[in-house]
């Protein structure tokens, strides 16, 4: 089992964390003006990247904080973690 480095608690076992899907999905500026299709895109549609992917994770068995991580979806390797208020990490 691999360790995931919580930005606050440090390296912990993977089972302490839960997955929160793609990171940096912006809430629509004017949700009321979206068509049903645009709203569905915001709610349901996510990238399905092969390779480095910016994701949200939660340290659910520890400090219970959300953070972001760059993970390679092909190898499951975590490249880096960063806090929610850090700028978006550059991904290819």
């Amino acid at each position, binding site marked *: 089992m691999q360790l995931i480095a919580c930005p*606050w*608690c*440090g390296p*912990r*076992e993977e*089972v*302490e964390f839960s997955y929160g899907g793609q990171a940096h999905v912006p809430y629509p500026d004017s949700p009321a003006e979206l068509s049903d299709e645009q709203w569905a895109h915001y709610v349901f549609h996510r990238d399905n990247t092969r390779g480095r992917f910016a994701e949200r994770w939660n340290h659910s*068995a*520890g*400090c*219970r*904080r959300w953070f972001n991580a760059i993970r390679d979806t092909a190898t499951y390797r975590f490249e880096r973690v960063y806090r929610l208020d850090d700028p978006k990490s550059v991904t290819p």
Partner: protein
Amino acid sequence: MAELLRTHPLEAWTAAFERLPDTVRIAAEPYVAMVDVRLGTVGPGASTALGVDLPTAPNTWVPAGAGRAVWLGPDEWLLTSPTEAPEELEGRVRAAVVGLGGSATDVSAQRIGLRLAGARVRDVLARGCSIDLHPRVFGRGSSAQTTLGQAGVVLLALSDAGDDVAVLVRSSFAGYLADWLLDAALEFTTTPDR
């Protein structure tokens, strides 16, 4: 009408704990008042009002009067007090942090404490806890929210020798964890000759 008595969730385990050897002593800690504090910014104002410098380093705890202040997150702490009633502690802490935009919530009924002491404590905990508990990195003042035997716990290092640890566990998991600890301690228990 039957009288409802307040009993400790681990009362039924007392005798089993007492049979443990000196290398792994387990005892239920007495009830203490506990308050969950949320506070965005910790400054001198908060320290003065609370009477304790809330620890800002992750995975640490500090004594707070007769109780403890445990880091739970970048804006969250657990304050305990063995001398105040839960509503007293909650009222005092709330009054101290509410003006700073913080909050205080009585969580005394959420967790109970177990005290593990003895030379084999680290071996017992290592049966079901993946974090490094070596005194080099988990000396007195260290804490960890993690899992022990798959139950969510808060571990507090009470000594620099790694032989004195407090385990805070949710009351409803206390019986399960007590059974798990007794099982993990079994190999250090000497069986009388038959």
